[in-house]
């Protein structure tokens, strides 16, 4: 009994913080999403409107476009980060001159705040003063202007996200790779596998849990990207980079439409959960089930 109480006491601060900053706001947002509430409007009262916010959402072209852009953004960013991160992790398992220096430099973006990343990239991409437009023009004669070219703006946001978050992927995959046992790889060589076959049949399945965990983390992050992009493009040009997080921000803050913004937040959370669940069902669960069946046999 005594130890039980001590246990709860030890957990109390965490539970308190989680409750105050996580659970209570969540239910508050859920509550808001069923209301019409604009505290700065003529009628600042909260009015219960049932599922009307959600109904509005389905026909909201702006929202659907932003969702589509977000999915594209998340897909390109996460896939690139995993591929580049894996290659860098493999490189870091080998010894080369300046490895320590490279690892430090490469990890630096991780400790930079997103808002700063956005500012830096904004500086680097501003047509008259940025280094990127300057060299693109000098070397390829290409005029980069993310203020007017929607595709270029979208690509730059993806590249910025890759720049910022690939180090995280590298670190997690590097940890996974170095903790792998050495013997199966030697066995695979003896079994006659070439490098590609070893990668495909041995390395990839063995670091699969780490890859999946990283994909989950990065996917969730990418779906709620706000600050970097807000700083870089402000969602423009037009709405070309107005990802769903930015869209919510625009509705909640400049437009102060709290009810509708809450509804979008809830839906985005729901979609994120569904996507992770689909990934889990598609990639993780079959294996677990398969081995359970075998264990029972």
């Amino acid at each position, binding site marked *: 009994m005594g130890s039980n109480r001590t246990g709860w006491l030890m957990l109390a601060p965490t539970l308190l913080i989680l409750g105050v900053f996580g659970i209570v706001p969540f239910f508050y947002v859920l509550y808001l999403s069923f209301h019409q509430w604009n505290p700065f409007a003529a009628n600042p009262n909260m009015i219960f409107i049932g599922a009307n916010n959600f109904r509005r959402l389905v026909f909201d072209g702006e929202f659907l476009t932003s969702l589509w852009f977000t999915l594209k953004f998340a897909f390109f960013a996460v896939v690139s980060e995993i591929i580049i991160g894996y290659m860098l992790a493999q490189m870091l398992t080998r010894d080369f001159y300046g490895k320590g220096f490279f690892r430090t430099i490469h990890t630096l973006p991780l400790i930079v705040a997103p808002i700063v990343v956005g500012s830096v990239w904004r500086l680097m991409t501003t047509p008259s003063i940025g280094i990127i437009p300057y060299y693109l023009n000098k070397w390829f004669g290409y005029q980069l202007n993310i203020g007017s070219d929607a595709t270029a703006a979208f690509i730059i946001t993806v590249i910025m996200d890759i720049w910022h978050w690939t180090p995280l992927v590298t670190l997690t995959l590097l940890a996974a790779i170095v903790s792998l*046992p050495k*013997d*199966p790889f*030697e*066995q*695979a*060589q*003896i*079994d*006659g*596998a*070439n490098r590609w*076959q070893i990668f495909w*049949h*041995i390395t990839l*399945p*063995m670091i*699969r849990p780490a890859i999946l965990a990283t994909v989950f983390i990065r996917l969730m992050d990418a779906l709620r990207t706000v600050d970097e992009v807000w700083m870089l493009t402000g969602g423009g040009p037009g709405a070309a980079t107005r990802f769903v997080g930015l869209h919510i921000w625009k509705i909640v803050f400049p437009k102060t439409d709290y009810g509708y913004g809450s509804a979008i937040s809830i839906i985005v959370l729901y979609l994120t959960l569904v996507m992770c669940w689909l990934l889990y069902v598609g990639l993780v669960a079959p294996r677990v089930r398969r*081995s359970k069946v*075998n*264990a029972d*046999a």
Partner: protein
Amino acid sequence: MAEVKIKDIVKRYGELQVIHGVNVDIRDGEFVVLVGPSGCGKSTLLRMIAGLEPISDGEMLIDGKVVNKVLPKDRDIAMVFQSYALYPHKTVAENMGFSLKIKGVPKPEIEAKVKQAASVLDLGKLLDRYPRQLSGGQRQRVAMGRAIVRDPRVFLFDEPLSNLDAKLRVAMRVEIKELHQRLKTTIIYVTHDQIEAMTMADKIVVMKDGYVEQIGAPLDLYDNPSNVFVAGFIGSPSMNFIKGSIRSDGGAQRFVSDHGSVLPVRPLPVSDGHPVIYGVRPEHITLGPGGLPVRVAVVEPTGAETQIFARSNEDAIDAMLRDRIAVRAGDHVNFVVDPVNAHVFDQQTTKRIS
């Protein structure tokens, strides 16, 4: 089926040389055991045969072809690792069939071969399991099955039994030997356990500190160890060694220890007073009249045998007797040695004299 020639093989890690010009000829179908204490370079040598470790100097030939620069995947050898090195994410069947799949062998053929190997190793019911669902002994079998399926030119075993319990180890020893008799494929087997070496090998290569100490048939090594190290390493319990010199004093030669114990020898080509190490195996000592008077220190009866740890002056001598003998600590008995069973080594070179 292949013969393996190891010619002046040297292994260096930077400045550090760990294998110093090793030469071994392995005939087609031979079962060769590399044995030695840990750190003697036996596993490194095996890994060089496999191609997992680059060769610093010398030549490695498989079937007459130099393979120094040939990748492991192109050497057509199979290896069983001490850790078994099973692919954790593949089932037993997938583990066993992997090498064939890589080669592009048609699926039905892979299945047939896996099934056949599984039945040989009694793995039939485990084919759909994952390595983590198997016991140590079963994993060991899968590792062997994976090697058998290959039908390789050479089998390499790197201490495959050292993670098994004593009983299973004996059983697997017999199985590997049977396997060799049936397949007649060249086997190179690394172990630190001299019993494994003695029971399984056609030929034993005893290594120490990166040098080959002696190569020969098991009983040959047992009967005629070429130096003190081999004499002490082969045989269990280990051979008794006593320091002393050869004396004749005009009559027949005999051994006199530094502490005055006297033991018989065969005629030796050495001068009087030559410093030697006298070796005799515990199992070659009998009790009887005459011989060396000793005081019993400890008696260890094991049922089948009785081991006596005794002292003669300051010299420690063990005897392993076939019978149950009513001796107790503190008793005085006589140890009798047939000079035929005495091994005499030069003290300076530790090489065999007789």
